[in-house]
């Protein structure tokens, strides 16, 4: 006799339909992984006030302050400016963003979700903390370089979904490809830093030279041997199927993002991941 199912719902936020727009924005800020990057790593860091260093093969980027301080944060931004930053990768005053800000993924987020995120961010206490300049080689230390990159590598466009597939699959695709921007780490990049779309989520090499796992359903190289419940448990608790617990950057993603999602959203992510083409690793993992 099988035991009654343990209520995995225990750890989740209330259903988003029952919450205010600001609470909905808070949920989306977690789902969008904003906190991990926009909060410094020190123990006394103020959430979302910026300062986190993001190392890349092209230099070190420092995430900006996104609290509503008018001078050092985003307190002066209009709705349209906020939308353009996410959809087009261009900030107020025509400032082209480097793709360290994952707008190539965020471009798919809906208007309603972005405005809910803005409502939440603007409900926070403004924190006066000036942004730190990025550390880049001279040839990239100009926004023209960012503009040129966009011309070559960026396609703007909202998520349209696949009408042939059901709501759960489409929700999973939206969370993985756009809001959760999983591919920004798990999809390999070409020499110019553009995501190689036909290798979506097939694993990559991080800026520290370490391998970021293949999360396509390939049976040996990816997560093809995991069942849906194992993926959902991993997203909720950080537990791998063998009982190990993940550390490093993914532990932070679990804490700030996926553990905060509703069970339905985690289920949708698992469904989408298992529906992807099973791609082998590009090369044998370095031991």
């Amino acid at each position, binding site marked *: *006799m*099988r*035991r*009654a*199912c*343990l*209520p*995995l719902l*225990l*750890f989740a936020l209330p259903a988003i339909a029952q919450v205010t727009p600001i609470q909905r924005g808070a949920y989306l800020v977690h789902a969008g992984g904003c906190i991990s990057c926009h909060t410094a790593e020190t123990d006394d860091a103020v959430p979302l006030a910026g300062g986190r260093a993001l190392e890349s093969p092209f230099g070190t980027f420092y995430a900006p302050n996104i609290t509503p301080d008018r001078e050092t944060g985003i307190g002066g931004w209009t709705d349209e400016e906020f939308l353009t930053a996410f959809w087009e990768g261009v900030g107020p005053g025509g400032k082209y963003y480097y793709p360290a800000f994952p707008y190539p993924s965020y471009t798919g987020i809906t208007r309603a979700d972005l405005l809910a995120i803005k409502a939440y961010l603007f409900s926070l206490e403004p924190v006066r903390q000036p942004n730190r300049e990025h550390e880049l080689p001279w040839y990239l230390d100009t926004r023209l370089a960012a503009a040129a990159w966009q011309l070559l590598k960026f396609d703007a466009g909202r998520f349209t979904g696949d009408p042939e597939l059901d709501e759960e699959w489409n929700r999973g695709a939206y969370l993985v490809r756009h809001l959760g921007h999983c591919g920004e780490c798990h999809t390999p990049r070409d020499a110019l830093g553009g995501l190689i779309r036909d290798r979506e989520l097939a694993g990559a090499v991080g800026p520290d030279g*370490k*391998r970021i*796992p293949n999360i396509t359903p390939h049976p040996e190289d990816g997560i093809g041997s995991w069942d849906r*419940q194992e993926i959902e*448990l991993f997203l909720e*608790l*950080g*537990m*791998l*199927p*063998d*009982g*190990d*617990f*993940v*550390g*490093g*950057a*993914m*532990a*932070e993603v*679990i*804490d700030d993002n996926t553990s905060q999602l509703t069970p339905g959203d985690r289920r949708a992510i698992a469904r989408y991941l298992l529906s992807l083409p099973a791609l082998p690793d590009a090369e044998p*993992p370095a031991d």
Partner: protein
Amino acid sequence: MRFKLFPCLICLLLASALLTTAQAETSAKNWSKYRHAVMDVLKGHISAISLVAFNQVEDTGHLKQHAAGLAEAATEVGKIFPAGSGEGTHALPAIWEQPEEFAAAVAELERTTQALSEAIAGGDRRTIASAFKAAGDACKGCHEKFREEHDHD
């Protein structure tokens, strides 16, 4: 009799000295192997608990033993990272550079696994679920700070 006891005592002293020397010379590689063995014990118990608690396997009547075993194995974690045993392993230098923080993380593992064992003995499913999450958070929190990220293949 006195003549026979004396060589025995000498032998015991020599054996004891050799054992002490052998312990002092345990290599970082062997410590790492031993740590992996201990961590495999923890992983095995956790995996067994999760398979039963999350409804994938019927309880064979050993869930309490797995929980007690996990809590018992957790008490060894603080003893398997002696100074100088980290070189060439996934153990991060922070273990020895921040000994108080590491000790606190280990204490949290001991506390939460003991609480999980008690919750499973008690049988309330909601308490078990939240205790399992707390124990998992202790594992994850320690790995996040003190273990180098590596492939889990």
